[in-house]
């Protein structure tokens, strides 16, 4: 479960950015939530956030759909 979601996030991010090598995802779990932190190259921030966060929103929707069976809250942070 743990690595599956971060791998999904990594795959989606890598597909969108100009520098896939600089994409990384770190995951931290606590009692109530799974926090996925996405890092991309500075110039690629726009590629994963989009106008008014449109891309970030779509990414979160996909991650949440994949985690439908997961009782914990999923938080996707772009840092």
């Amino acid at each position, binding site marked *: 479960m743990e690595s599956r979601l971060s*791998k999904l996030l990594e*795959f989606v991010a890598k*597909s969108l950015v100009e520098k896939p090598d600089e994409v990384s995802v770190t995951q931290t779990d606590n009692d109530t939530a799974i926090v996925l932190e996405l890092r991309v190259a500075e110039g690629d921030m726009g590629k994963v956030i989009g106008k*008014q966060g449109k*891309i970030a929103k*779509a*990414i979160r*929707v*996909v991650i949440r759909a*994949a985690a439908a069976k997961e009782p914990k809250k999923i938080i996707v942070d772009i840092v």
Partner: protein
Amino acid sequence: MSRVEVSAKTVDEAVRSAIAQLGISEAEAEIEIVDEGAKGLFGIGGKDAKVIVTKKSAGQDAAEMARAFIEELIDRMDLVCIADVEEKEDVINVTVSGKGVGGIIGRRGETLDAVQYLTNLYVNKGKHGDGYKRVLIDSENYRAKREETLVRLANSMAAKALKYRREMKFEPMSAYERRVIHSALQSHGGVTTKSIGEEPYRKIVVSPK
């Protein structure tokens, strides 16, 4: 220019130079090696390598990209589905079917829209207007059914607007769904429609003429 023939000392060198000349990435290149070349002895009798590099036709490429992306995405989402890809001019139609379709549609098609949006971004990455492909993803006729529902809703809202002689507001909808409603009521004699508010809360108002 979408095809060049290049000779160089080695195949690698020729390919690199050809790709640079075409201004494409290696993934977009279709490489045909005409001659592998030969080293020769002390620079004598050597033969240059020759390659022909063609830019993959944007069309095929985009449909293939869409399929690969969606299949991998579905797989990584742990859904059991198959994607059928069909291309018509500038539109790539993807139909997703299988056991896991509920998961890919989501509430009110939310997931389907997100997957569609991300696939569009991926397929059109680095393209600027030229060769832009629109990817439409549907599953179990969800979009067609949703469209029917919207048209029915549009007509009943129009009837209410006329009955009570006042404006009726719809719920916020995506640009696509609003367009369905606008065009459904365009030919309606008694009402006019407009959109108000800011995305993502933009909604339609129907008012009696």
